[in-house]
């Protein structure tokens, strides 16, 4: 004898409420299927329909207004068990609030069920209209909206990929529709158009007359969502360990700003310099700045090389500035005033009163290599560390050959 999920308590809804019909329909459908109560997880929304929790022997999760579909989706994806029946329950108000959640669960085709009790009103707050209230129903309550159509959520679910979507009415064979939904592997939506004796339609036959959208069953043949589960490896363990095998002449802390244009390897040059610093036995930090449109405009990398541990990573007055484009120059026009050492591409105008190491990095290394070329050129001139440290830093890049070639060109570049 299959067990009912109902405890047998008196159902608390108003006499004549469609919720009672649907609750009995849910119990009947599960009974017919022979599902054990503890294989059912009922996720309820705010609203009269949420009172179902007290009536059942199955697991219950009572969440927030409009969010039952999203919460149930998490439960269904977390369990990832085809033997469990996850049922979310909400009213037409809740479905309006959480329309995005409904569409997302449909689109992913999550193995769960969403039952929408559509009694055309927000019943718990005094009978306000919802996005599912039909026009003729609104004519009395909110005439200015009577020509605005209601959402056809069954069509929306179908169009977004739900395996099963169905609209049924109080008076129809609700248990049969629900059983079909519960047996479906994938996302199922069942909209039950209901009476509401307090604020809505009181006679079942009038429901059909008022609704813009009639009984319908729509099916998509597609596989249900699978909870992604992948084998993963450590993301710290996979980082290249940098052996400190070179020396550095640096005694204190050196703050370097590299400024150029997006797409010209500024961030990469910063990263290679910081890695080279570690290989030379130094502490380093590297940060980047660029506009939200990452493919255009300026790009700035800040690198600190230090004999001592680096605490504060900000740079106010850079010791060295390497500028390779007009974008970079414009961005850094204020900090240039405070720097002692300036390295610039020969196309740029050296600010008045400043001296700069100038060379034709762009012709030598092209657009992609201009910044690394300038950094390597400065590094060579500075004698802080061997260029081999910078070359080593490129080893894990798939473009290592091109990067090494750029560094080698920089080593022999003549000043302008």
């Amino acid at each position, binding site marked *: 004898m299959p067990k009912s999920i109902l405890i047998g308590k008196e159902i608390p809804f108003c006499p004549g409420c469609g919720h009672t019909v649907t609750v009995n329909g849910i119990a009947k459908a599960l009974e017919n299927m022979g599902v054990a109560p503890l294989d059912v997880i009922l996720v309820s929304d705010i609203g009269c329909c949420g009172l179902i929790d007290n009536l059942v022997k*199955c697991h219950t999760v009572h969440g927030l207004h409009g969010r039952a579909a999203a919460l149930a989706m998490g*439960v269904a*994806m977390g369990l990832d068990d085809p033997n469990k029946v996850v049922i979310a329950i909400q009213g037409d108000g809740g479905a309006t609030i959480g329309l995005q959640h409904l569409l997302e669960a449909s689109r992913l085709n999550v193995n769960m069920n969403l039952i929408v009790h559509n009694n055309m009103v927000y019943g718990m707050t005094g009978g306000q209209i919802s996005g599912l209230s039909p026009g003729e129903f609104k004519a009395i309550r909110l005439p200015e909206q009577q020509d605005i159509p209601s959402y056809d959520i069954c069509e929306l679910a179908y169009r977004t990929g739900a395996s099963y979507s169905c609209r049924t009415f109080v008076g129809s064979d609700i248990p049969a529709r629900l059983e079909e939904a519960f047996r479906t592997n994938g996302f199922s939506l069942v909209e039950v158009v209901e009476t509401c004796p307090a604020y809505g339609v009181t006679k079942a036959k009038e429901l059909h007359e008022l609704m813009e959208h009639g009984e319908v069953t729509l099916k998509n043949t597609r596989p249900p969502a699978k909870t992604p589960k992948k084998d*993963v490896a450590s*993301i710290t363990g996979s980082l290249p*360990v*940098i052996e400190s095998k070179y020396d550095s002449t640096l005694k204190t802390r050196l703050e370097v700003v590299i400024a150029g244009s997006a797409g010209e390897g500024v961030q990469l040059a910063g990263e290679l310099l910081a890695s080279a610093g570690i290989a030379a036995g130094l502490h380093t*930090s590297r940060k980047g*700045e660029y506009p939200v449109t990452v493919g255009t405009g300026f790009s700035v990398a800040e690198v600190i090389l230090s004999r001592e541990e680096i605490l*504060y990573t900000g740079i106010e007055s850079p010791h060295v500035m390497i500028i390779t484009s007009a974008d970079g120059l414009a961005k850094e026009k204020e900090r240039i005033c405070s720097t002692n050492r300036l390295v610039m591409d020969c196309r740029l105008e050296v600010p008045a009163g400043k001296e700069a190491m100038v060379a034709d990095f762009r012709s030598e290394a092209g657009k992609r290599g201009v910044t690394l070329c300038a950094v390597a050129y400065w590094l060579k001139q500075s004698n802080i560390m061997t260029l081999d440290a910078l070359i080593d830093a490129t080893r894990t890049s798939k473009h290592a050959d091109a990067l090494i070639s750029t560094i080698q060109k920089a080593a022999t570049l003549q000043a302008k």
Partner: protein
Amino acid sequence: MCSNKKRNVLIDGSRLMIEAMVQAGANVFVGYPITPANLLYAYASQRFPTFMPAPDEISSLQWATGFAAAGKIPVTATSFPGYALMVEPINMAYMMEMPIVIIMAQRLGPSTGSATTGAEGDLLLLRGSISGGYPIPVLCPSDFKDCWDLAFQSVSVAVKLRMPVVLLTSKEMVMTARSFDLSRLSSMTPVRWNLYEGDEEYRPYLSGADMVPPFLPAGNERHQVRINASTHDTLGLIRKATPEAIANTTRLKEKVEKRIQEYTFYHYDHEEGAEIVIVTYGVTADAARDAVKSIRAEGERISLLILKTLIPVPPVIFDILDRYRMIVFAEENLPGLLQEIMFGQSRSRRIRNVSKIAFMITPSEIVRGVEECRKAS
């Protein structure tokens, strides 16, 4: 890990946090890729066994709570605009007693503000997130070692106390790369749920002396589980203001406050004879460490207190501050949010603020703040 051989790498705080959380036992990441939490999202997509890209932050937290109800340990990462959307579902998870770790990478506000500029401007929002003023544990790393240790602790506290926990950080911590010796990281044992093993009827919100009920996932075949975001009794059924239901709600506050010793983290660099203490947290901590070095190099006495548990403020912090004549708060916001949480809006002459937005506070600004403090006294 924890070997003697150095393993130097160039790494950012995001990578350390995500790796530590997975090693701590977190197994689901649900999120929306907001700046400056992008790196956290990107690393999570590589490292978490289950990674779910969500269309928005309300969905993120609803999904995450559902995963937790099914027995998973979920993590998300966001910044202010996303957290603002999460406030309602965080309250839900708080009431349901579901563990979720929310990494909050702060950026300059108000509103959308400046997505790629750091800040420390969200502490009061976190303090006021839960209706009723109940505290949500907030841990805050002050360096890369903390990114590892506190990421673990945030998972641990979330599961032990069965509640959402915020790991508060900022753009500069999660996006700046530094040389770092991986051998400094301690190994960790994954956190486990305290599961209900009794045969009697399971009351999902009945706790013992530890104030945290044992857990069973929804969907288990042994006992009925009721999880509830509304005011409820120990069975998990909606109740209005019954004594049992109100006692249950009161317990939510008490478990956070009474078990504070289990997650009290701070660094106290005490100098004998110092009358002034610098109080700071997060990305400003490094500037304060530099400032303390230069103040001491000048022969002046100064102490430093870096808070790593920000909410609730551990009682020991007030005990320490009682020993000082003057307190200098350094934090990257204008009103002095930690100072306001600790001392309210009254402006005591004992307290000074070093405040700033849009740029990190510099060591010299903190030094200046301490000098002014000294002169004023």
